[in-house]
């Protein structure tokens, strides 16, 4: 405090005291105002921190969703072996169920697999029987294959028209004669099917010549084309 102020306070002590009091009040008011502002600032800061945390969570969530959708899009575009297996399995299951309930369904495995194998002959044995006039040859393949080439003297009796063809070609055959059936490929054993049906017709002797037309031709025996 300078000399002039000291003199002034000394000369007007009451006035000086009042001013001092007034200054203290003002200081208190400012302090209180500052405290309120500080509290408000702290509250704003807390809210901002909270908002930032919420934004971070939302951002992460958005990133995760976007990543999941991108993965899903990529998965859709990808050719997957799981899809192949699924389509194959579903097709197989539906096919089997449909076939089981279909009155015109087919057997899953050929019935010939579960029947006893008929007696077999090879080319030379078959030729011998034919030469002795003790046997007839039946070509069990479909007509179009028979027409392409067959063993000389064979008659064509195939499974799909068996009953009709049997009545036409074999019904009057001497019951003592052996019937030698041939005709098979990788996909169909026509010979076994026809042999089975002939045995059902009470033919005494039915044999199967597995080698068929190709084995016969390889031996150089007569064929018709």
């Amino acid at each position: 405090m300078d000399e002039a102020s000291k003199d002034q306070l000394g000369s007007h002590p009451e006035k000086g005291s009042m001013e001092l009091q007034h200054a203290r009040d003002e200081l208190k008011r400012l302090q209180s105002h500052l405290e309120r502002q500080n509290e408000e600032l702290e509250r704003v800061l807390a809210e901002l921190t909270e908002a930032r945390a919420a934004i971070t969570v939302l951002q992460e969530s958005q990133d995760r969703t976007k990543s999941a959708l991108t993965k899903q899009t990529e998965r859709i575009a990808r050719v997957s072996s799981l899809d192949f297996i699924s389509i194959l399995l579903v097709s197989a299951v539906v096919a089997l169920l449909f076939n089981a309930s279909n009155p015109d369904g087919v057997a899953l495995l050929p019935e010939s697999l579960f029947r006893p194998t008929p007696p077999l002959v090879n080319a030379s044995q078959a030729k011998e029987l034919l030469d002795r006039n003790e046997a007839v040859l039946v070509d069990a393949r479909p007509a179009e294959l028979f027409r392409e080439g067959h063993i000389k003297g064979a008659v064509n009796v195939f499974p799909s028209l068996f009953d009709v063809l049997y009545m036409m070609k074999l019904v009057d055959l001497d019951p003592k004669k052996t019937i030698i059936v041939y005709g098979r490929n990788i996909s169909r054993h026509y010979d076994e099917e026809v042999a089975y049906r002939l045995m059902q017709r009470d033919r005494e002797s039915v044999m199967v010549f597995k080698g068929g037309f190709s084995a016969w031709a390889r031996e150089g025996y007569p064929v018709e084309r």
Partner: protein
Amino acid sequence: MKHGEWIRRSGSRYLALIFRLYIGGIFIYAGMYKINYAADFAETVASYQLVPFWAVNVVALVLPWMELFCGLLLVAGVRTRSAATMIAGMLLLFIMAVAINLVRGAPIGCGCFRAVEEPISSLTVVRDLVWFSMAVYVCFLDSPLQLERRGLISL
């Protein structure tokens, strides 16, 4: 260049859509007929002389359903690339089967849609090759109107 990249760059998405619906429709039609006549179709499968005799009926039963499901998936646009790949694979098998029997000179019908059909010829191979190309095109090129992609396509 990556496999099929040139198709992606130069191809049309709308052409892919047309091929997708066409091939899908053909396979639905082909499958539906054969499903109802399994015994006839088994004879067709056997006539190709490529499948072992114990597997003929199983193939004749399952194959038409595979054709039907793949066709439906292709038309609906669900698992499109997988369905198109499977159809392309089946067509490749059909082409090989027909080609082998043409070389053998076997007098068999195609059996592609009906049990009794005109005999296989080089035209059958050409037709199947065209369908195979369409399936490959669909496989490599994304097409619009796919059920599975609704809502994801904008990403």
